């Protein structure tokens, strides 16, 4: 960490009105008044060239009588996080918007608007997260609202919008090509897609509120693992790391190695799953069956190491619950050899089919400048020329002891995203061999686990889909505020640009190429079309109608 660079940044931030500055590990915490927020954000985003990670609101009225809003930025080149905090009074929570400077902050602000009742001046506001007939004035994340309040559910859904001069194809919420409930409306002219309306959010289960009320610190590990079934261990590790950072707990080295081993096993299984589903969506069912046949030993390996095929449940704050002995190590190395050999043959065969090459090349292109403005993460960013990987830039767990390559391609089309994932499988196998070789001896859980109150921490991990951010403010016995931002949340607005001009038959593979995990996302978005706005009137008495202004 470059201390001179941090000093320089702090002086510049102070000159622009920041106060209350403190530095802990790799994070700089600042506070600022709400009228100076926009100029500070412009400096951080444009001149320091930081990426936007997330923003979250918090109800701090029991502590200091105000509502607070936290914006989190990240500087990957220097390995830093910057957290900017503003306040608003409790009877009139108004904040200035930063959406014109940072387009990626759109839904985070609307989520705070829905769940906490914040007003953002200078932008159009709409209902995002809660169902359409949720009673007005009931904000679930405020501290006085109980977590198990249940208004009467309605069984009448909304109607499809019917614009008159353009054909609309509804996909979902239950469709043979999808495995999760989500709703897309593709507007097409002839065979080309011109615009997309997306309404998701069928998977909002109230996780953040549950983590603040009924659950204790050690129980939230199991809750975080079930945010997503495919990349669950990443969320659990990220939460544990945030609490350990805030409480300054020393985790033993052997536990860090075991966590990294299980993380890489999860990455291999997730990428193999994706390659199979992509082959199925392209029509190549043989490829789907063979890829999942090769993936099965990886699931048996996970069961051998942790006790369950998915949702492993071995993380605790301060370490892990299960150990790896010599016989398991030997079996793991055998399985890895088999998987590497078979997947290499299969990937070569798959990429030599001329129809697949033709369908994947030059479709769904995401140019580099748009990718930078929207702060996309993961394989989507690496396929568009942005060189971002949390395992190398802000190393966590045992990644500082291994070396590996980060594959980056420049084209930004569907083929590049497939190649990035295939390369990452082989890199993961290489990392696993190094980790299994170097694992040190020692205890697997820390001795003394005491968590003091009123500390903050930000922690990042690299999920198979991108970067994952967890933000924790500790309280007594359970967190005071826990904010999760999953990687698919940042990647879905890129769909608006990728689906523009694509043939209708290529739409499913383009949507699947960002590897969306809607249960991680659990938000709704209304995609706007270059400045023209959709008015999605969800509280309309007829159940919802949308009148697009112009198409």
């Amino acid at each position: 960490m470059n201390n001179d660079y941090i000093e320089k940044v702090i002086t510049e931030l102070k000159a622009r009105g920041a106060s209350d500055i403190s530095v802990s590990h790799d994070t700089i915490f600042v506070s600022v008044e709400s009228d100076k927020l926009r100029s500070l954000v412009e400096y951080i985003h444009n001149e320091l060239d930081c990426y936007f990670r997330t923003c979250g609101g918090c109800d701090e009225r029991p502590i200091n009588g105000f509502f607070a809003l936290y914006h989190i930025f990240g500087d990957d080149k220097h390995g830093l996080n910057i957290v900017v905090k503003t306040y608003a009074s409790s009877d009139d929570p108004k904040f200035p918007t930063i959406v014109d400077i940072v387009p990626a902050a759109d839904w985070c602000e609307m989520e705070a608007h829905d769940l906490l009742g914040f007003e953002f001046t200078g932008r159009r506001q709409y209902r995002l997260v809660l169902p359409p007939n949720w009673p007005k004035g009931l904000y679930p994340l405020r501290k006085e609202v109980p977590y198990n309040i249940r208004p009467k559910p309605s069984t009448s859904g909304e109607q499809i919008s019917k614009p008159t001069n353009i054909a609309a194809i509804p996909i979902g919420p239950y469709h043979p090509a999808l495995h999760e409930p989500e709703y897309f409306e593709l507007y097409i002219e002839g065979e080309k897609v011109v615009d997309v309306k997306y309404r998701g959010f069928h998977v909002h289960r109230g996780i953040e509120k549950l983590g603040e009320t009924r659950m204790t610190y050690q129980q939230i590990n199991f809750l975080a693992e079930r945010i997503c079934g495919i990349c669950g261990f990443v969320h659990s590790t990220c939460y544990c790391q945030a609490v350990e950072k805030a409480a300054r707990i020393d985790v033993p080295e052997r536990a860090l190695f075991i966590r990294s081993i299980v993380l890489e096993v999860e990455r291999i299984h997730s990428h193999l799953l994706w390659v199979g589903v992509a082959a199925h969506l392209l029509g190549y069912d043989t490829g789907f069956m063979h890829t999942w046949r090769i993936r099965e030993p990886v699931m048996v390996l996970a069961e051998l190491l942790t006790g369950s095929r998915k949702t492993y449940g071995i993380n605790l704050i301060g370490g892990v619950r299960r150990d790896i002995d010599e016989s398991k190590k030997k079996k793991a190395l055998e399985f890895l050899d088999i998987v590497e050999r078979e997947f290499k043959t299969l990937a070569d065969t798959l990429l030599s089919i001329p129809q697949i090459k033709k369908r994947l090349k030059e479709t769904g292109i995401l140019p580099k400048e748009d990718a930078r403005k929207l702060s996309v993460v993961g394989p989507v960013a690496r396929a568009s020329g942005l060189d971002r990987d949390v395992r190398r830039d802000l190393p966590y767990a045992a990644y500082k002891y291994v070396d590996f390559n980060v594959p980056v391609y420049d084209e930004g089309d569907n083929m590049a995203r497939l190649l990035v994932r295939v390369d990452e499988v082989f890199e993961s196998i290489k990392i696993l061999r190094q980790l299994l070789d170097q694992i040190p001896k020692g205890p697997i859980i820390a001795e003394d686990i005491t968590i003091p109150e009123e500390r903050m921490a930000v922690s990042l991990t690299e999920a198979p889909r991108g970067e994952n951010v967890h933000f924790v403010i500790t309280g007594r016995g359970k967190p005071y505020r826990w904010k999760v931002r999953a990687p698919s949340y940042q990647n879905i607005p890129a769909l608006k640009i990728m689906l523009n001009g694509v043939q209708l038959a290529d739409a499913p593979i383009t949507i699947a190429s960002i590897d969306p995990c809607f249960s991680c996302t659990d938000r709704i978005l209304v995609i706007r079309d270059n400045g023209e706005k959709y008015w999605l009137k969800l509280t309309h008495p007829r159940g919802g109608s949308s009148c697009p202004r112009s198409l």
Partner: protein
Amino acid sequence: MSEKSLGKKLGLFKILIIAKKAGRVTRKYPFEKPLVTDEFRGKIEIDEKECIGCGACANACPPNALKLIKGENTFILQYFIGRCIYCWRCIDVCPTNAIKGTREFELATPDLNDLYESVVHDVIKCRECSKPIMTVKAKDYIISKVSVSENYIDLDPDCRKKHFLSSIEKRFSGGIE
């Protein structure tokens, strides 16, 4: 021809060689044994001879599948298999090792009542106000660990507070009430 050059000539038809090499991998479950390792976490078994009814497992269970239902004459420890997430945290925290993990996963049923298991405990009552305090087995366990607690264990917390305050008062007033 060697396999590599054959593969180059076939191109995309190499999938036929891959399929032939893999053969048939299906396991004919349920007529054959399933593919389960020794480490698998299945259903738990509560041993009614060791359980003392303290409720530590009910506190630690994330989805509240284990519940200690406090009635007037009995405390019932109820285990709902339908909501269990098979994390085995209850096994970690039980003080008497009364809960054991098994590898059972064949738990399907058409009747929801089949998924409840209960252990029924007798309780002791407060000698002053007759409210139920804890189970008989928990009392024996505490007395075996801390023998001086036998004097006040059959008082519930409110009555214990009253006794304690009155004994302080007695001491300050020299033993005269």
